């Protein structure tokens, strides 16, 4: 992966050390690539933070909510990866250095972090882990062989995915009919709903009217145009 870069730095062709007259030339900055990556990284960190917050809550969210969140995060991670791949050449060719104005002494730690090219120990560890997991011995195989093996692996994955989709189409995972029955009958998907879900009961009367009769024998006057009888005072 390419080294990320901070906007405060730029690739410049005409560098003057005179601070007053110095004007930074930002034309060489691959701003389009950096902006695209920054946006995707911001999304990714946001959703990762949300997952961490969800998991640290006393009451765990529902499993499907977590799964949905994880799906979003994985999609964003893929988007970051593909963006990085897309701008691979540009970013690889970009050299990063600080501007003269940068407060080197007061922010040395920040500067060294930003300019660091060596992987941090945990990143090294991840790379090592994935190399081991691939089952390829890089000491014995050369680059060409490895690329070949990876290509084969990709093909195999693609084949498996196709087969899966093909099989998935054959079965019906919803409703009461099998896929075969559905195709034969030619009827479109019928939505089966329980009666209890559609049944909305209506009230035929007001409860108070009934109770008035039960407790006092007062009958509700139906379609009478006369003045209602004086109700019993409380």
């Amino acid at each position, binding site marked *: 992966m390419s080294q990320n870069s901070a906007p405060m730095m730029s690739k410049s062709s005409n560098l003057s050390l005179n601070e007053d007259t110095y004007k930074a030339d930002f034309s060489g900055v691959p701003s389009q690539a950096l902006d695209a990556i920054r946006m995707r990284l911001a999304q990714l960190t946001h959703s990762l933070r949300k997952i961490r917050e969800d998991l640290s809550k006393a009451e765990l969210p529902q499993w499907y909510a977590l799964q949905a969140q994880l799906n979003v995060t994985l999609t964003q991670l893929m988007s970051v990866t593909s963006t990085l791949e897309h701008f691979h050449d540009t970013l690889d060719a970009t050299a990063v250095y600080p501007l003269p104005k940068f407060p080197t002494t007061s922010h040395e730690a920040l500067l060294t972090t930003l300019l660091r090219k060596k992987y941090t120990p945990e990143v090294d560890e991840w790379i090592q882990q994935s190399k081991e997991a691939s089952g390829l011995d890089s000491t014995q195989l050369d680059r060409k062989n490895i690329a070949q093996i990876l290509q084969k692996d990709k093909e195999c994955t693609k084949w498996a995915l196709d087969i899966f989709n093909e099989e998935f189409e054959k079965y019906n995972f919803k409703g009461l009919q099998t896929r075969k029955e559905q195709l034969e009958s030619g009827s479109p998907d019928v939505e089966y709903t329980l*009666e*209890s879900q559609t*049944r909305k*009961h*209506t*009230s*035929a*009367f*007001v*409860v*108070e*009217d*009934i*109770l*008035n*009769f*039960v*407790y*006092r*024998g007062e*009958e509700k006057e139906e379609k009478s145009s006369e003045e209602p009888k*004086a109700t*019993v*005072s*409380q």
Partner: protein
Amino acid sequence: MVQQLSLYGSLDDASYDLFVSTMTTVSGNPPIAFAKLSTVWIPNPAFQIEGVNTKNQLVEQTRIKLERKLPLSSLTSDDDGKSPAKYTHSIVKSLVGDDIPIEYKQLKQHIGELPRKADPDAMDVDSEESKPVSAAAFDDEPWCVTIADIPAAGNNRKVSMQTINESVLMSHVGPDTSITSIMGGLGYVFQYQYITAGVKFNLKHGLVVELQKIWNVSESSKKQVTKGGFLIKAFINVGKATDIERMNFTESVLLNLQKELQGYVDLAVPDRKSMDSRMGFE
């Protein structure tokens, strides 16, 4: 004296089957069909009843309700040769109209207002043949005597809370053993009557859910008050109003049921004035 905590709701006729199966599932018990005759009595207006007692305190005059079980066979007109097992909750479903095969005269016999035939022995035989439901056949059936107070006041009550005095009248003696003469002795006269038929479910913690259909049976006409639907009553009786713990627990049991049925049947607290059986002052 019991405290009755209750919630009411309504259900349309078409939803009956679904509600019965829902409640059977929820309660784990089958529905129990029932039918009863309720008669309501008021203080005899012929008497001049003082509104205050000797201490100058207001005396509330209250209606008295007398209830007696009716056999389920009385709900259908074609009951000849049918086994008792036939009288299930499905019988209630068929009762949708105003008509009910119980006559005003029969009911009057129940309370003894209409004179029966002179010889009680002969009448028993007659009635068995002519009318399957005769009041005489139920002379041993006890009456349940009920006096209810107006439900407790308060704006944010989650359930209706009513004090009820109940007693059972097993038997009575004297030259005239009719219920009318007994009530007459207490200074009460008949006001109106109605028939309730329905099903009930017994749930845990003494919770009872009743589906009721009510008919107003008067001399001239029979009219179903709950036309097109059922009255739903969910209630629990608590022995003592002072048993706060029990009251709170009971309230939460009712609220749980309300929550469980939410969106399907909405149980609510009715206006307390509609449950006031006092005479009032005019």
